[in-house]
């Protein structure tokens, strides 16, 4: 097994009474992209701070690049970590290029990267303007350029696409994919990101400081057993008379089938000549998120105090 970039074992963090994180275990390999989802206060930011070495753990073990992030030796590793905080507003009176140069200097990154990164995030035209004249999206892109400084081996991005227009979001995901190909491990932290599915290898869903689900999207779909929705056109009469398919039909005429029944169902549908169109939609990340969250709430209500073991 290759060494994990991030390795957390039963990590907990308590603030007085509040259990911000509870028994989180996570192995993040090189080149892996993890989506970290959860609503406000679920512990996402605390988890990031612990990985970044800003917060100490209350219990449990954590190593980043094989070292305790609190230790002195981990110091130089910080040059290989990129972080985009939520709601950061950079020095308003500085220009874009000045802000980025400052951070580059602190990270001992060669100056030429500043221009390259501004180009990458599409801010070259505005780099000589003061940050206070920037729109929300431009500030966010400046923040991303900051996180990309020094070609990080580990990237933590908190709400990276907030305020970005669709084109910029696409470009952002391109950058993520490129960094991933170069072997960077990335943690994307968000409520739910539309369109993030193709870009993450695994997802972790946090609620109340616990990991209520972790795994690849396929695994999560499997465990949740949410149906695949199949829409057909032109054969609604035949569907109702087909003994196999009729049982799957829901109110709006679409078919709800389990993942393992998908192919056989599709074959059956395809055998009808009248079919003019078909669409297959697996459970979206958002549906999975809702499913696991409501599941967790239900279990919490059942046994308020007893510890709930994470699904994975």
């Amino acid at each position, binding site marked *: 097994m290759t060494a994990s970039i991030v390795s957390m074992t039963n990590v907990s963090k308590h603030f007085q009474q509040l259990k911000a994180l509870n028994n989180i275990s996570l192995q993040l390999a090189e080149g892996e992209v993890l989506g970290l989802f959860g609503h406000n206060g679920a512990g996402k930011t605390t988890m990031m*701070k612990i990985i970044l*070495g*800003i917060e100490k753990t209350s219990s449990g073990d954590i190593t980043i690049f094989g070292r305790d992030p609190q230790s002195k030796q981990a110091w130089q590793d*910080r040059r290989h970590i990129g972080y985009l905080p939520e*709601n*950061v*507003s950079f020095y308003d*009176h500085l220009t874009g290029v000045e802000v980025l140069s400052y951070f580059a200097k*602190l990270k*001992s990154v060669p100056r030429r990267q500043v221009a390259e990164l501004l180009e990458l995030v599409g801010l070259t035209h505005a780099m000589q303007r003061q940050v206070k004249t920037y729109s929300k999206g431009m500030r966010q892109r400046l923040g991303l350029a900051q996180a990309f400084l020094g070609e990080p081996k580990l990237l933590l991005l908190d709400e990276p696409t907030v305020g970005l227009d669709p084109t910029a979001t696409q470009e952002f995901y391109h950058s993520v994919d490129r960094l991933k190909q170069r072997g960077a491990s990335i943690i994307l932290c968000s409520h739910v990101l539309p369109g993030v599915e193709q870009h993450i290898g695994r997802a972790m869903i946090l609620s109340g400081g616990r990991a209520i689900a972790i795994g690849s999207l396929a695994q999560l779909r499997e465990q949740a057993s949410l149906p695949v929705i199949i829409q057909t056109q032109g054969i609604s009469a035949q569907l109702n008379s087909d003994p196999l398919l009729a049982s799957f039909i829901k109110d709006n005429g679409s078919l709800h089938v389990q993942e393992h029944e998908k192919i056989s169902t599709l074959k059956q549908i395809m055998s009808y000549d009248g079919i003019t169109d078909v669409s297959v939609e697996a459970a979206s990340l958002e549906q999975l998120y809702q499913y696991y969250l409501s599941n967790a709430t239900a279990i919490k209500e059942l046994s308020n105090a007893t510890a709930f073991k994470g699904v994975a």
Partner: protein
Amino acid sequence: MNAILAVASKEFQDGLRNRWFVSITAVFAILSLGLSYYGAAASGGEGGGSLSSTIASLSSLAVFLIPLIALLLSYDSFVGEQEAGTLLLLLTYPLSKGQLLLGKFVGQGAIITLATALGFGSAAVMIGFQSGFEGVFAAFGLFIVTATLLGLAFISVAYVISIAVNEKSKAAGIALLVWFFFVLVFDLAVLAALVGVDDGLTQQGLVNVMMFNPADVFRLINLAALDSGDVNGVIAVAINSSQSITVLMTIMVAWILVPLTVARVVFANKKL
């Protein structure tokens, strides 16, 4: 080391950019020139006052102004970045809290130091041309050094405030209260204790109490070096039993280092 320099140069450039440096320098220069020309008018004299009366008036004004300027320059240094979110970000960089603190101190300290040297220094040069250089540089030299130390001391105090609180407005309020306490309340309280309470304070005790106020130490150093004719109030009493200038200077420096150390400790325990 590079990180400290990077922070320091950014802070220094910020000071240049937002006109702090120019304003402080101008205020100091105008103040000292004005006082040297018109200082004597108050006592019915004409033309330039004596050098010692100029320094005496300057000290009394500087003791109000410099702490205020230093506190205003630095009160939001940390809490401002905390509110913007950049403080959290900076701490994920290969930059320790101590380096950040030191870098900011060097940068903003350089602003105050240069402004003091240029502002009062230019006035000293002009006064020198006007009435001869003899004694001017010695008197102004001591004044500029102590004024700088006073400014640095209040920058350190401002850092303690800026790190300890979580809201900019609160930091501003506390900074003003601190200023009010050190330049006004403290002396009044000492005076009241001296006059109102029998055997409350001996003369030596008074001087010792004044060591707890950097503004008073500043005045003690400057006024002790002058003819006592231009000096009155609590200071006059204190000067008679004053410590050597070395001791007083050491205490000034301690007033820089101790708050900085406190700021460092508070920073280490601060939750972001």
